[in-house]
């Protein structure tokens, strides 16, 4: 291959490419500066650690959502899935330590199953994923409320809650390192590996141009279905962390689906598929969490948060992804 007028590396890094990381990193930087101004000790290891720990779930959800969105689909069911998982966990564990691990495995399986169903309905029955997952959202919430007659039953064992709540104490330099953070790092690494794998690369191709992908030997329906499964599993892990962090409640997953989608879009992933990186998606989620913390620090009234969130989204998208079609 002949390389023509290739700019030097630094320039290429700076080049704002749609779907690239530059915009989200910039946004993140701005937020960090704002935090630093208002709350310097936020960067003290303990508080930073706990912040990262508590942000783990939404970051994981964003990673899962990334795979679905980059393949050209939506997953609106993750929020409901998280709620369902937490409530199910509480009822099955019923504060009985021995049940912890079996239930954890069961949750992961359940998440994968829901993803599989989403995927198959979308790809095989050709139902737009927006509808599929919207329906799944209603079904999951309805079913779990029904199953627990409207009020969460049982309780989570401390063993279960440990993942989301406890931390490795007195680690040198860092102080306490939340288990959630470890879990996050592990799964984030996994996500990056998957995204870099042949599957991950071809998945983007599927989102960009399914016809070409099909004619190049990609089993499009299978790829998309797997993407949904990944999202489901991510939701399961997130549910374990959230349940651990804050205990059982029907609010556990409320609104997380939009949070995750927002994060992914902030991260420069194009709705409709074919563009974006999982790292960007996760950074997007991190910025979103940072934004909320920032609003707490600046004492923005709880009521106004959504306005700020909405404005940020519109700005970020208008600036970073001007190419996305109106579909």
């Amino acid at each position: 291959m002949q390389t023509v007028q290739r700019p030097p590396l630094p320039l290429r890094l700076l080049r704002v490419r749609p779907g690239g990381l530059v915009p989200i990193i910039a946004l993140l930087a701005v937020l960090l500066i704002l935090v630093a101004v208002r709350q310097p000790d936020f960067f003290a290891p303990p508080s930073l650690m706990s912040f990262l720990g508590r942000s783990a779930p939404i970051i994981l959800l964003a990673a899962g959502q990334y795979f679905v969105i980059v393949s050209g689909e939506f997953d609106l069911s993750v929020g409901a899935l998280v709620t369902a998982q937490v409530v199910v966990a509480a009822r099955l564990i019923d504060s009985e330590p021995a049940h912890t691990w079996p239930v954890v495995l069961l949750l992961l399986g359940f998440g994968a199953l829901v993803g599989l169903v989403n995927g198959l309905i979308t790809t095989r029955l050709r139902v737009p994923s927006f509808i599929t997952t919207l329906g799944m959202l209603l079904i999951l919430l309805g079913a779990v409320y029904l199953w627990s007659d409207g009020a969460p039953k049982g309780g989570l064992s401390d063993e279960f809650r440990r993942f989301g709540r406890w931390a490795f104490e007195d680690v040198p330099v860092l102080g306490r390192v939340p288990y959630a953070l470890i879990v996050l790092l592990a799964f984030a690494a996994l996500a990056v590996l998957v995204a870099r794998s042949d599957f991950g690369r071809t998945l983007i191709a599927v989102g960009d141009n399914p016809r070409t992908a099909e004619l190049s030997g990609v089993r499009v329906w299978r790829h998309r279905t797997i993407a949904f499964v990944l999202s489901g599993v991510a939701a399961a892990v997130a549910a374990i962390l959230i349940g651990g962090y804050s205990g059982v409640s029907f609010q556990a997953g409320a609104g997380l689906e939009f949070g995750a989608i927002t994060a992914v879009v902030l991260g420069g992933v194009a709705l409709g598929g074919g563009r974006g990186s999982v790292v960007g998606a996760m950074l997007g989620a991190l910025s979103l969490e940072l934004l909320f913390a920032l609003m707490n620090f600046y004492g923005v009234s709880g009521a106004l948060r959504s306005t700020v969130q909405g404005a940020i989204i519109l700005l970020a998208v208008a600036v970073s992804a001007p190419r996305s079609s109106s579909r």
Partner: protein
Amino acid sequence: MRRTIAALAAVTLLGLAGCATDEPAAGPSGSASAAGSGTGEQSKFFVQADYDAELALLDATATGPADRPWEQVLNPKMVETAKFKKAGPHKLCFSNAALNNPWRQVGFKTMQAEVEAQGSRIKEFVHVDAEGKDQKQIADINDLLGKGCDALIVSPNTTATLTPAVTAACKAGLPVIVFDRGVDTPCPVTFINPIGGYGFGHVGAEFVSQRMKPGGKLLALRILPGVDVLETRWSAAKVAFDKAGVDVVGVEFTDGDPAKTKKIVNDYIQRHGTIDGVWMDAGAVAVAAVEAFQDAGKPVPPINGEDQLDFLKLWKDKGLTAIAPTYPTYQWRTPIIAALRILDGQPVSNPWKLPQPTVTQENLDSYLDLDMPPLHYAMCGCTDLPGYPQRWK
């Protein structure tokens, strides 16, 4: 109208900004800080008279069987109900605002148990769940009117917006009993509820502001805006805090989401180094708030919760400085009792003010029942009802 214009302005401004700068993010937050820090201007739900009345009720002594608080009345004002006298068995209809939280679940189970307890006196009990939608509840009430109910029980989803529907129901001629939240019309035969929001908010606020160190920082956690029961709790607490000169560093809405609660509390501890008192308008997220302090390795400051068992248990185990004003779920028994009395033509009190016990360090043990699920409400007054305890588990 200023609001609307503001809305338009905001929308368009943000629109323009969409292709310009980061301003809008700053814009709203600036104007918000007023509402964010300090207790801000008094809620428009605050009515001095009611406030005084409720606080007076706190020390009033109830008439009625001591062991059955759901049949007791504070300062009864009896009304004639002879015109509603009717031979049983009766068909009772109940338009329920929602079943979407543990409090309402426990309450409704209690109500069903009460119906069962009344046995043959009730031939049918129709229940319609409005799923927290005003417009659905209005339709539901209208629907129930066509079902030949002998009495209509309403637990309104929102005070103001349900008033027209309830008025229409009264016009239909059958006895209407409103409980939990009220309506802006005197037409129901009786309005049943405990002392109410002002009492709840006051008790909690008094306790916290007295126990926290003087000049300390207090964080107020609220569930949602715009629910009158909760609004009155907050407005009463406000009065107490302003009187005690407490520094309220934040008023945040948690949506009853424990995760959100922990994040908020965590950030406030961050921001202010320490929080010396926590007041909340409902117990739902009390446990989460306490955990936030524990996770941050901070001592748990004086705090108020509600009579949910998970909180009471935590309180006992960790020896918190806490109090639990209640909004007793046993009030769900009363409407059934009232309905039957009305249909018997017996006079009932309107308003029917129920006592509103408070869980304190002293009586904590008497309410803490470890056999019941964590989200069960101690004040259910359901121990004597058929199906206890399985029905509530």
